[in-house]
């Protein structure tokens, strides 16, 4: 058992040395494609974070001054209820201090300095408003103007001011990066496949002898599959390193964006980048092993 294990390891690393240029090409291609895969997931997560407050058909947010008394809140609520009764607003939801602080955690994830300035006493609470389907944008703009005049209202934001552009940007970026990583992943899979095929061709006499003396197909196949798996894993490790660096640089850079840009929430929160890192490692290992496994089975009769 031990001699088989040492044989497998020895042959795997011999394969690496034998095919150094092709191996390097396969690892670099895997790293780039896995990096784009990881960045695609991070970008999508960033956009989701950015757009979370607009989920559920919310198209208007009324920010209420911090420290507003209950009667001030009731006045705003009754004004909103009037719109509900005439059918221009489908529903609305009040986000209290706790809810608003959680919202600030997401929105200001890229700007911790500003977030630290906010607390229970100074954070504006907010009303999320879902208009009726028949309500036109022009009417919402008029509503915004009138709500801004209400006492205790800090400001009013419409989804159209942020949402349309960001949604379009998200769709564009997601489509192209997804297409790119799928194409590159296919390329790296094929490159690994070709590396293994070349390795098997170079060792065709050895394989012939192995088969004639009674080595099983799995015994012959495993060092090649291990070689492919390691190639995929090395590419994945490189991709994770670069992705973490890019994410760190982006998160640092976002802090310098003006608050009004609305981009400070375009960051990854809750350690999601580590989940993506695990996906990348698993995906890299899987692509490497499947690519080499198919090649090893296909070209065993060299």
């Amino acid at each position: 058992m031990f001699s088989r294990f040492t044989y497998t390891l020895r042959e795997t690393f011999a394969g690496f040395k034998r095919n150094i240029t092709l191996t390097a090409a396969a690892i670099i291609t895997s790293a780039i494609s896995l990096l784009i895969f990881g960045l695609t997931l991070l970008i999508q997560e960033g956009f989701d974070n950015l757009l979370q407050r607009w989920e559920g058909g919310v198209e208007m947010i009324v920010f209420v001054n911090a420290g507003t008394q209950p009667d001030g809140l009731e006045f705003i609520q009754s004004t909103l209820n009037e719109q509900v009764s005439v059918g221009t607003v489908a529903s609305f939801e009040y986000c209290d201090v706790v809810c608003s602080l959680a919202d600030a955690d997401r929105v200001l994830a890229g700007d911790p300095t500003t977030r630290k300035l906010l607390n229970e006493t100074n954070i504006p609470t907010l009303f999320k408003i879902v208009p009726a389907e028949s309500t036109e944008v022009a009417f919402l703009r008029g509503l915004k103007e009138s709500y801004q005049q209400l006492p205790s209202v800090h400001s009013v934001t419409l989804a159209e001011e942020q949402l349309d552009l960001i949604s379009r940007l998200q769709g564009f970026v997601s489509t192209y990066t997804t297409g790119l990583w799928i194409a590159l992943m296919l390329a790296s899979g094929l490159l690994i496949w070709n590396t293994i095929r070349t390795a098997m061709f170079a060792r065709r006499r050895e394989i012939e002898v192995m088969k004639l003396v009674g080595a099983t197909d799995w015994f012959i196949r495993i060092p090649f599959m291990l070689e492919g798996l390691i190639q995929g894993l090395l590419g994945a490790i490189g991709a994770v390193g670069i992705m973490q660096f890019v994410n760190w640089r982006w998160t640092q850079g976002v802090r310098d964006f003006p608050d009004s840009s609305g981009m400070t929430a375009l960051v990854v929160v809750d350690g999601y980048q580590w989940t993506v890192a695990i996906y990348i490692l698993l995906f890299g290992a899987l692509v490497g092993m499947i690519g080499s496994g198919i090649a090893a089975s296909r070209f065993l009769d060299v």
Partner: protein
Amino acid sequence: MIRLENVTKSYSTEVVALRDASFDIAKGEFVFLVGPSGSGKSTMLRLLNREERPERGAVWVAGRNIIDMPPSRVPHLRRNIGNIFQDYKLLSNKTVFENVAFAQEVIGKPKHVIRQQVPAVLDLVGLAGKEDRFPHQLSGGEQQRVSVARAFVNRPLILIADEPTGNLDPTTGEGIMRLLDRINKTGTTVVMATHDQRIVNTMRKRVIQLDRGVIVRDQARGVYE
């Protein structure tokens, strides 16, 4: 040990390598397969290894019809068969020791067994002291001895030799034949395809003659005709 029953093997509709071939080879026999090029000798050896499968008939090796054998069992069959080739098929990047040890390594023999058995078999074939040489540092006869050592190191029941003296001068060829004879005397069945008239006539072993895929002669203590 080996039985062929009405075996027919063709590579295309025009090329019939073996036609309705039948014979029995007992344990410990030494058999020459003779005949002109293309008569079906190599095909017959490949059938014994399950490198080929016939269209019709049965091939029995060590009590099993290997035609019906599932592919996963074929490696186990081959562990009981040693192979020697005209072109030696040695691995040029491995030493003499490593070439022979390779046959044990790939079937999972423990290191201490390899360290014990490989020198013994190299001694048997007359290569003691040349363990660290590479194939290109050996003569043709010595390379063939390495090939014999590799084929015999796992103590197979059957030894298949396809023109083992084809690339060797007569004197060296005789040395290889003496070696195969010694191995045969240990109880190993030897089946050897050859064109070498002198060797067949000197050894006077059983001769199976093929002509265009048909067995035309099966003679105990035969000669090359």
